[in-house]
């Protein structure tokens, strides 16, 4: 009890020095809470955007299709797969899809593009293109031989709603596939690559045009929660009905996304470590000074019967008080700051290249979670404690007689 009092009062012997130290700890943890929340917020929107706009959380494909997409690598019985998906817990929605590369020509120009066959009814539940129509209408079973195309592609082909597009490709059995379709709508996802090179048509049109015979290239599914994806994937992989097919998750489907996230995370972590080391040195300095200037006092305390152990304990209590107050301040302020920006968002300006690739526009919303709130401050807490241990452990080596002679 008196030791607590002693530690507490010792902190306030050098008010300014102690406050500076606590502020260093506080601002470092504030920064970590905010930065981590920001990073995880941006990853979540990147994943979310990518999942909603192109890959879904999970896909079932023919084995080898993802590595090397070819027309003939098909899921022959999509109905069977969809039955399995519909009774797998954790799956929210799914839709069948086919795709291939073709040449598309307007009156003036020709481009190599990807044409996708989708089922508009089920596609809506999985992917968000239906909500991104800028002109005209989304696909409808009542309007066969109609397609929707990306904004950039429309500009390149100099084509608009109501105009015709000639498609030339190769069907599943190797014969020529050609048709003329009408542009029914124009969409903008914000992902340039998609907007530049994608055309969507009805899955039934695709089936007829490319002689698919009821087969598709992928069943795209979303899980109820991002965090459940791994579990659901495992369950599907173990399903005997899918044993000849490949079950892929969003990481397999867009490895670049995971890599960008990892790269960003690693560079973030390096920065955080540097920050923590700087803070650690400032703490070490404070505590070394506290031990040096109090050497004489330690000598007296040992002379009256205080064990070195107890002195170390008092020093560590001092460090824990200071660290604790710093961390508390940092976490509260960090949480407040994060929550504020979680409401209003942070405008990304021109620095949003990476984000734009994954369809995030304008603002990032940091996301506060227990993890982002606690990881940074916990690391600072541990490092600070270890740093304070170094000078404190000098105490047991002191001889009281020598210590009392120190100035």
């Amino acid at each position, binding site marked *: *009890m*008196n030791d607590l*009092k*002693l530690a507490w*009062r*010792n902190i306030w*012997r050098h008010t300014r020095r102690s406050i500076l130290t606590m502020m260093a700890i506080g601002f470092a943890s504030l920064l970590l809470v905010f930065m981590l929340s920001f990073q995880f917020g941006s990853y979540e929107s990147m994943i979310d955007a990518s999942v909603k706009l192109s890959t879904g959380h999970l896909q079932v494909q023919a084995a080898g299709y993802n590595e090397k997409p070819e027309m003939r690598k098909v899921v022959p019985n999509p109905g069977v797969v969809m039955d399995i998906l519909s009774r797998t817990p954790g799956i929210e929605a799914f839709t069948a899809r086919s795709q291939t590369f073709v040449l598309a020509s307007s009156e003036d120009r020709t481009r190599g593009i990807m044409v996708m066959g989708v089922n508009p009814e089920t596609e809506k539940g999985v992917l968000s293109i239906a909500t991104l129509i800028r002109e005209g209408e989304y696909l409808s079973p009542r309007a066969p031989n109609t397609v929707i195309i990306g904004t950039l592609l429309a500009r390149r082909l100099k084509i608009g709603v109501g105009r015709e597009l000639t498609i030339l490709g190769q069907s599943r059995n190797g014969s020529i596939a050609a048709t003329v379709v009408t542009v029914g709508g124009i969409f903008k996802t914000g992902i340039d690559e998609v907007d530049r090179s994608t055309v969507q048509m009805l899955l039934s049109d695709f089936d007829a045009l490319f002689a698919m015979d009821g087969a598709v290239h992928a069943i795209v599914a979303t899980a109820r929660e991002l965090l459940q994806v791994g579990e659901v994937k495992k369950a599907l992989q173990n399903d005997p009905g899918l044993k000849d097919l490949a079950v892929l998750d969003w990481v397999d489907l867009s490895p670049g996304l995971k890599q960008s996230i990892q790269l960003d995370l690693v560079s973030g972590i390096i920065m955080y470590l540097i920050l923590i080391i700087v803070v650690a040195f400032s703490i070490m300095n404070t505590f070394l000074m506290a031990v040096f200037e109090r050497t*004489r*006092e330690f*000598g*007296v*305390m*040992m*002379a*009256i*019967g*205080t*064990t*070195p*152990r*107890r002195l170390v304990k008092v020093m560590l209590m001092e460090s824990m008080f200071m660290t604790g107050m710093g961390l508390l301040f940092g976490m509260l302020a960090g949480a407040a700051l994060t929550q504020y920006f979680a409401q209003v968002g942070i405008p990304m300006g021109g620095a949003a290249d990476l984000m734009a690739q994954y369809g995030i526009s304008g603002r990032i919303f940091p996301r506060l979670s227990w993890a982002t709130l606690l990881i940074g401050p916990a690391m600072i807490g541990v490092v600070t404690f270890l740093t304070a241990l170094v000078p404190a452990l000098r105490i*047991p080596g002191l*001889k*009281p*007689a*020598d210590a*009392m002679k120190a100035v």
Partner: protein
Amino acid sequence: MNAVTVSDVSKIYTQGDVKVMALNKVSLKVDAGEFVAIAGPSGSGKTTLLNLIGGLDSPDTGHISVNGKAFEKMSSGDLAELRLTQIGFVFQSYNLIPVFTAEENVEYILQLQGVGKKERKQRARAMLDDVGLEGKYDRKPSQLSGGQQQRVAVARSLVSNPTIILADEPTANLDSVNGESLLQTMREMNEKHNVTFIFSTHDAMVMEASKRLITMKDGAIAGDQVK
């Protein structure tokens, strides 16, 4: 059993190339209840001897034991424990804990001994009253005069009921009135509670009041006279 046994103790300080023989094969026995003064010129080794007896420093050769406990087998923690329960210290300069009040300084020792809060407060205050500091319980050392600080230090050394008190020139910083009353307190403790006192001094009055006078010279005992 002797309260203090010092046999063949030497202590050499090295400063750069210079070696100082602070104690040269000193042997000494003090019985429980003695009231011993150590006199001698400056630099003769008085402080060094007291520090060694209190286990604040370790000798280069020789053995020391207090109340039958030999120091050489004890860790620094054990020595602190021994000081806490059996030895009281009064230093030449005041050496209080600056962030504690007078009362807390005295109380702290009792807390180290595990005495309960209520008793602690009572005993600390009674002790401060005894050394003439009633009403100054809540002053920090910086708010006390030199003599008052010294009396807090004495109260601190006495409050734990030690069997031996080691005092290094306890009256050196006090005026003659304060010095005499401190000496009076020390003798009372000695006679009533049979506490052993060993103290160094330059003060003729203190030497006069002692019951045994040891004289040191150049790190050795030059005279030992029981009155």
